[in-house]
């Protein structure tokens, strides 16, 4: 007899099989003497166990006994997180993506500033190179910050030597 058959027979005796399976096992038992023998042994064992279950008495009262178990279980359960720090724990999962986005934003702003994409008014945006291409000409240049006007002014070389030295001004000289 296979182990599966023995288990099915035990389930039959315990009333755990479906109606159809139970009929099948009953037919099998009717035909197989070995199955009948095993069924008789199992019935006898079940009856012996049912009549001899040990009676265990709890020393404390029922309520006290269960409350002791409950307290023991509660002592094993971790304490509830501090509600004041709950938002921090909730945001912790977003820290990695947020820090990644911040990194991308910092890179974007940095590269944009150095490549002149934003058109921001930083001093590097106004870097200018003015070069006189004639020996007879000298140039002045300056930038009016208030009016956002850049001026290149040329003068004949001899006139400049008499009047003012060639300089590159930053702001607020009068042109006339």
């Amino acid at each position, binding site marked *: 007899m296979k182990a599966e058959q023995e288990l099915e027979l035990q389930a039959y005796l315990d009333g755990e099989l479906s109606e159809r399976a139970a009929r099948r096992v009953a037919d099998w038992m009717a035909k197989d003497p070995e199955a009948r023998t095993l069924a008789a042994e199992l019935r006898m064992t079940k009856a012996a166990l049912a009549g001899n279950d040990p009676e265990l008495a709890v020393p404390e009262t029922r309520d006290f006994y269960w409350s002791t178990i409950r307290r023991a279980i509660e002592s094993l359960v971790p304490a509830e997180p501090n509600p004041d720090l709950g938002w921090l724990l909730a945001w912790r999962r977003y820290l*990695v*993506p947020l820090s*990644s*986005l911040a*990194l*991308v934003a910092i*890179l*974007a702003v940095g*590269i*944009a500033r150095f*490549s*002149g*994409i934003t*058109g921001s*008014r930083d001093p*590097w*945006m*106004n*870097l*200018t*190179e*003015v*070069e*006189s*291409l*004639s020996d007879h*000409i000298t*140039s002045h*240049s300056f930038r*009016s910050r*208030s*009016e*956002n*006007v*850049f*001026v*290149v*002014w*040329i*003068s004949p070389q001899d*006139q400049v030597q008499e009047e003012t030295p060639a300089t590159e001004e930053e702001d*607020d000289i*009068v*042109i*006339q």
Partner: protein
Amino acid sequence: MSRARSPRQLFLLRILAVGLATVLGVGPLMAAELKLDLRLIWCTDEKLPPDKHKEVEPATVEKFRKVPFKWKYYYEINRVTGTVPSRGTKAFKMSAKCTIEITEMAGPKVEAKLIGEGRPVVKATKNLTPGEWTTIGGDDKDGAGWFVLITELGEK
């Protein structure tokens, strides 16, 4: 041995990659043609007959005075608009003697070269600053002056 990445890590890596590609890719794409307005302006303290010379509009004159240019009157001798191709050069003929050659460069930068009577006179290379006006000019006889005002069209 390489470690397998979770879907969340792959998502974050994709975001980083797209962000970096966007940031690094915008710079080269910014190269664009320049639409410019150039005006040859003559300035003097003497009032000229209005039928012969076109006066510069008061708002612009006020700005010139704040630069500060101290002439009383400003007259527009010629006005030319045109487009400088990306990374290219265009010459703007302002008068029989005066030509301005503009080059759009990487950076974005602009080079403005003044050519007088066929000979290069002065060259200015500067970063392109939004809204900025550029003037190249000089003194004329009898205390007058002239300059070419260069502005980018579509900006104020």
